[in-house]
């Protein structure tokens, strides 16, 4: 009898200890992300919390435009994990001393999802828009966010420029293409979502958008047929842990989780191209690879650091010059 009581007491003690151990892990991670993956993370976070690494971890979440979030974190918004829409936004945080410069050395060079620049067209594609050459035809009206008010819109510009280079055009010819393209642009909204509203309201024949945005809109009942051109840029979305995080262990566990096949499948179901090659193969039908696909580091583009300076400098950049030529003439 005494032995049984002893056994019971030991069991109780072990149980108490394990419960205590679990509850001392009450960690709250702050996720600061750009606006589109909200749905995706709403699904991923509960899944993460069921894994060992995510046990006892709660999340505070914030979603807004990538640039806005980057500036907020710089101004002191507490974050453990940032998930932004393009690498330069994370590099800004590196310059501010908030993210380790080695973030790109994570798996998949710091990226967690991919997408592509695509053409959203009208029902039935009456103007038969299939490739970049169709965009510069007379009478074709193009909608794209403004690359200076929307960091993400820079993907569109580089897709257009890079596609020309992929076709074998010279740098000058590719710039001439950009000029012709922007002469056909009828709306340069401040963000991708605003551009979508403009397009939905009836403006333009084609909109330059991101595949995951178009897929998300479709999943929400929006009628948005799109065409993927033969040559287009691979959009790569980064995640990183902050140097100032007080829960680096859990934050890194979350990042590792995001790259597991389960998480990558969840991303794929939400319209993002997985970085995990095996999962990407599983979804090959949903996400066909394009023969002319390229990244910001290929075709001699030189990566974002070089591209930002060359194309998007507000005074001397290629795009600044093109906007002047397009707008100043008629404005």
């Amino acid at each position, binding site marked *: 009898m005494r032995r049984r009581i002893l056994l019971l007491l030991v069991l109780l003690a072990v149980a108490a200890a394990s419960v205590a151990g679990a509850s001392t892990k009450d960690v709250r991670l702050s996720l600061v992300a750009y606006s589109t993956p*909200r749905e995706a993370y709403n699904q991923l976070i509960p899944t993460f919390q069921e894994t060992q690494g995510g046990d006892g971890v709660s999340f*505070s979440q*914030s979603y807004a435009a990538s640039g806005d979030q980057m500036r*907020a974190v710089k101004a*002191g918004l507490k974050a453990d994990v940032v998930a932004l829409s393009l690498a330069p936004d994370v590099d800004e945080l590196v310059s501010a001393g908030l993210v380790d410069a080695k973030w790109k050395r994570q798996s998949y060079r710091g990226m967690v999802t991919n997408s592509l620049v695509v053409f959203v067209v009208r029902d039935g594609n009456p103007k038969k828009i299939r490739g970049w050459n169709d965009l510069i035809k007379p009478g074709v009206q193009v909608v794209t966010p403004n690359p200076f008010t929307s960091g993400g819109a820079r993907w569109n510009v580089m897709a257009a420029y890079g596609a020309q280079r992929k076709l074998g055009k010279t740098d000058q010819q590719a710039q001439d293409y950009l000029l012709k393209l922007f002469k056909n642009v009828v709306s340069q909204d401040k963000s991708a979502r605003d551009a979508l509203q403009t397009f939905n309201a009836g403006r333009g024949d084609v909109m330059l958008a991101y595949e995951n945005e178009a897929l998300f*809109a479709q999943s929400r009942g929006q009628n948005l047929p799109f065409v993927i051109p033969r040559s287009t840029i691979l959009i790569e979305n980064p995640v990183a842990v902050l140097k100032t995080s007080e829960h680096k262990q859990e934050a890194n566990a979350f990042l590792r989780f995001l790259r597991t096949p389960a998480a990558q499948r969840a991303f794929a179901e939400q319209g993002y191209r997985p970085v995990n090659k095996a999962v990407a193969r599983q979804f090959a039908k949903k996400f066909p690879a394009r023969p002319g696909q390229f990244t910001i580091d290929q075709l001699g583009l030189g990566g974002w650091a070089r591209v930002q300076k060359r194309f998007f400098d507000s005074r001397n950049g290629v795009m600044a010059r093109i906007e002047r030529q397009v707008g100043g003439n008629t404005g």
Partner: protein
Amino acid sequence: MIRLVRRLGLRAIALGYLAVILIGPLSLVFYRTFEDGIGPAWDALSTPETVNAFKLTLIITAIAVPLNTIFGIACGLAIVRRRFRGKGIVNAFVDLPLALSPVVVGLSLFLLYGRDGWFGWLGDHGIQILFSLPAMVIATIFVSLPFVAREVIPTLREIGDEQEQAARTLGANGRQTFWRITLPAIRWAVIYGVILTTARCLGEYGAVAVVSGRLQGETETATLRVEERYESFDLAGAYAISIVLALIAVLVLVAMTAIRPKEEAA
């Protein structure tokens, strides 16, 4: 006859103007909210995040409106009834907040309270301003500052100060004069000023969005929920939340015009 034509003409102009600029858009908001039935609207309004967002909006409004009302009355009295140097500058400063776009308001608050801002050191001592209630209140006070003052000033000029002078000669002190003579005389100005200020606080989006950090369930106001619904392609939900904001504003107007003094109701 000519008088009737003139009256109808003015009425037509006013109503035509309002129809194009105000009634048309409002009707469309109503229509779009209930286009697909009451379901999407109700779904958007009943989530706990939205309820919390309304609470936060009301808290911020409840702080900003009284402060700006007191300021507005004091400012109006100072400018109209007192003599001092620099009146013109103070006067112009009162309207200046409106001239800043929300982006610039956000930027200026970052410059003041951000990590490397003028008062960034407050954060090191545990005083959280940005991305928390204080910054949201400051931003809201900023954008809604001028309205009570701007209403009170023309009315104070219009009514003149004979009654106040009379009260003084009869022996009333400053406080009595204010509460019994001045304040009742400017009641409509104060009422309309408070209504405008409240409506503005309810509908504030841009500046508060920037300084709030948009922490889900913590620093989201009703207008930020509108944005969230917009981003999720739930326009009916976005409009539903906006309609509730508009209704609150109308309720405030009804309440304030209903509590006017008895002699007015005759």
